[in-house]
């Protein structure tokens, strides 16, 4: 019976990538010298699952590579090898390499074979050197240790009696897979006992009738064998006994301390070298599936159940025909509540904890601090705060940029920190929390902070501000979001890659969010990102201009009021200004810029909605305010194209389409028209 394994690939890849993330996380948390055995166990288990899975699916390159890692980890676990920074770094690179290999398998393209071979060689070298404590790991000591190592290792012949219970196959365990793994450990002879096999017509395809007697010869430990059978422990009778012990070095003089040489290396040599740049371009994006907690699904099922009940209640009211208004009203109220809850639950399915975005940072901080010679402690809080998947995907790059910046420009090198009376180790804090209908992400460091003097002199030299202009500290800090603005004296290869804060700001604005900076020289900086929770639904204020209904995102509206005649002012070029308390805000007539026939043309007859975007405030002149409601955002670009001043469309209760205004775009559009009119 052959099963199409392809169908399990997706799950395998997802699990493996999760396993790799976990390995990375644990590796970064390891304390050098005195590593917690539980952590190493976790790493080992993850590696083991990947090895097992990849062997099952025939991804031999992955299996072989993981096997080496596993051996190294195994030595650490048994305390035969000290946990050194060197080993951890190598394992981290190996995790990257495995990601690469698995990614290549998933997208059916070529992995970076050169890198694989280099790393395999490094792993082999490390394994050959043997379990030396760091102090002795010099070359002189190495050969001696190796000799010692060799003496310790015994080649053993194991006799394994493996009698699976009939139901074992149904638990998803495949003996062949286990045998394949055993074969990786040494020379394996398998004898099957088919005496219990019934007559052909009586065979149930999912029962196991066979049992096996296996002989395994090699330098293998008892635990290594039990581990392979660990998943079928309860589903079989198993006995593992040593048959004989042979002094190893009489037979195979140089054999490291394991089975590393069993894996034929020549077969791994790249057959052809494909350019890696080409491969990286692969358009296949991340797996488009979400793993959803069972509680979320349960909630949905419950809600649908309630919806069905409400529906039957309503149809019963309909049949009664006794004109029972109360019952109908109750039913409708219930329906409304159900719908809202259902909507919220469905949205929640797309929500993932922000740890998905944060998880890459421990590794990044680890690598970058080593490169930059800095000492940084990464603190993270609010990782469980949930965020829509699409928002999460798009916020990753801006976050990376900000963290890089903090590490490179923000936090000083230890000597300077000490000189300035700060603790040697800098702190980088990532924090996320919900506030109203948005999520706030803070990236703060206790580094050097922004140098206001340098920023303003740079801005003056670039002509961004006037020579004699005096700006508040906040205004100066905002200058760093200008395109092409960098105050870094030297461009390092960490930052200064041509992507500036302007791109960060643009990306965040593209998500409907905002970014602020707060910094004190010498004390550190905090970047605060505010994002909508989801890109699919927003709270909208319905407004009317003439016969048209538009929607303004509620978040952009500061206030609405009737216009008092005395407060209207005009300046020479025809711009109308409105005095609102102590500031003058320009009036933008929506009907003007949208070429509509309004009901009112006199400012005092209509309403002014003060909208704000990007620190810029205008009073939007409209005919009337209608209700507020949550709207589902639909793109105009799908079938049409982008329209200035409009961010999308939605469908109202009566089935008609209403356009959602893009306040930022609208202000920009109005400004452009104004300058054009003047020119």
């Amino acid at each position, binding site marked *: 019976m052959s099963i199409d394994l392809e169908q399990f690939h997706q799950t395998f890849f997802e699990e493996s990538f999760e396993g790799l993330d976990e390995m990375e996380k644990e590796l970064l948390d390891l304390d050098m010298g005195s590593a917690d055995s539980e952590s190493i166990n976790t790493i080992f288990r993850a590696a083991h699952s990947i090895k097992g899975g990849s062997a099952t699916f025939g991804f031999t390159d992955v299996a072989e590579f993981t096997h080496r890692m596993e051996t190294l980890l195994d030595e650490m676990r048994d305390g035969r090898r000290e946990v050194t920074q060197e080993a951890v770094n190598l394992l981290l690179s190996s995790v990257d390499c495995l990601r690469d290999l698995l990614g290549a398998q998933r997208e059916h393209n070529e992995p970076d074979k050169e890198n694989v071979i280099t790393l395999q060689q490094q792993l082999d070298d490390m394994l050959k050197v043997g379990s030396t404590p760091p102090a002795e790991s010099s070359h002189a000591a190495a050969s001696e240790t190796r000799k010692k190592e060799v003496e310790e290792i015994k080649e053993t012949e194991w006799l394994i009696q493996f009698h699976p219970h009939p139901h074992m196959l149904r638990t998803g365990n495949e003996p062949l897979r286990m045998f394949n793994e055993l074969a990786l450990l040494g020379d394996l002879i398998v004898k099957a006992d088919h005496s219990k096999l019934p007559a052909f017509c009586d065979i149930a395809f999912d029962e196991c009738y066979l049992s096996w007697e296996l002989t395994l010869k090699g330098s293998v430990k008892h635990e290594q064998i039990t581990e392979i059978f660990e998943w079928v422990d309860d589903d079989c009778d198993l006995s593992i006994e040593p048959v004989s012990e042979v002094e190893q070095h009489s037979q195979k003089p140089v054999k490291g301390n394991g089975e590393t040489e069993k894996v034929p290396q020549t077969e791994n040599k790249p057959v052809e070298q494909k350019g890696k740049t080409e491969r990286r371009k692969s358009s296949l994006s991340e797996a488009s599936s979400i793993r959803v907690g069972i509680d979320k699904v349960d909630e949905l099922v419950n809600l649908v159940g309630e919806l069905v009940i409400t529906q039957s209640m309503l149809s019963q009211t309909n049949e009664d025909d006794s004109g029972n208004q109360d019952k109908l009203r109750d039913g409708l109220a219930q329906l409304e509540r159900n719908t809202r809850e259902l909507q919220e639950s469905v949205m929640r399915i797309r929500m993932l904890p922000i740890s998905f975005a944060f998880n890459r940072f421990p590794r990044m901080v680890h690598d970058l601090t080593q490169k930059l010679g800095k000492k940084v402690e990464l603190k993270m809080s609010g990782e469980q705060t949930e965020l829509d998947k699409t928002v999460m995907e798009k916020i990753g790059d801006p976050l990376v940029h900000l963290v890089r910046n903090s590490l490179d420009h923000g936090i000083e090198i230890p000597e300077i920190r000490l000189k300035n009376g700060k603790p040697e180790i800098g702190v980088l804090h990532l924090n996320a929390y919900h506030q109203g209908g948005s999520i706030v992400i803070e990236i703060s460091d206790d580094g050097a902070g922004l140098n206001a003097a340098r920023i303003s002199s740079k801005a003056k030299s670039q002509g961004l501000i006037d020579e004699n202009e005096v700006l508040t500290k906040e205004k100066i800090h905002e200058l760093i979001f200008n395109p092409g603005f960098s105050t870094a004296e030297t461009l390092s290869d960490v930052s200064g890659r041509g992507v500036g804060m302007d791109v960060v700001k643009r990306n965040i604005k593209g998500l409907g969010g905002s970014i602020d900076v707060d910094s004190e020289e010498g004390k550190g900086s905090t970047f605060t990102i505010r994002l909508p929770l989801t890109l699919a639904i927003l709270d909208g204020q319905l407004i009317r201009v003439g016969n*048209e209904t538009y929607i303004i995102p509620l978040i952009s509206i500061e206030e609405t009021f009737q216009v008092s005649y005395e407060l209207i002012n005009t300046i020479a070029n025809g711009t109308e200004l409105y005095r609102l308390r102590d500031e003058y805000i320009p009036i933008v007539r929506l009907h003007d*810029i*949208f*070429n*509509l026939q309004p009901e009112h043309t006199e400012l005092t007859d209509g309403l002014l909605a003060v909208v704000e975007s990007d620190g810029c405030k205008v009073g939007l002149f409209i005919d009337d305010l209608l209700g507020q409601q949550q709207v589902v955002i*639909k*793109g*105009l670009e*799908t*079938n*049409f*194209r982008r*329209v*200035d*001043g*409009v961010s999308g*469309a939605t*469908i109202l209760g009566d*089935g*008609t*389409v*209403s*356009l959602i205004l893009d306040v930022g775009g609208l202000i920009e559009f109005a400004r452009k028209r104004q300058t054009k009119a003047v020119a």
Partner: protein
Amino acid sequence: MSTAAETLEVGVDHIINNEDTSQYLTFILGGEEYGIDILRVQEIKGWDLVTTIPNTPEYIKGVINLRGTIVPIIDLREKFALGNKKYGPTTVVIVLKVESEGCDRIVGVVVDAVSDVYSIRGSDLKPAPDFGGTISTEFLRGLATVEDKMVILLNIDELLNVGVLNAIDTEVN
């Protein structure tokens, strides 16, 4: 068994023989008959109110809600400068699937009335003479004669992408 196989063979032959025959849905615009590849037609619906889109040319009537999808509606009569005509009971919206840069778009076109469905062979198509006019020849697939009438076959992908959606920018500014 053998008859089935024969029929199949005949069927295949039939398809091969008619390889270059396509079916066209024709419609009336200002007294002229235009045709579009019937495989592009998703549905035909009556004219209904649309939501206008600000700052777009007159021939973009607006957008409608087609079972949850926002679909732009384009008046071909106005696009082709055939004069304005009051929308009447025969006015329909033909909802078309258009290929644009590798993905499909749904666009509705307003026409005076739908007319007929014809099978027309590719070899019977005559190139349209390049003689100016409001429809550039790049949007025409060709001219065909059906029962002594001339039918103008449109290249709907080109027309709606290049001729309408991409042209808006230049026209508005």
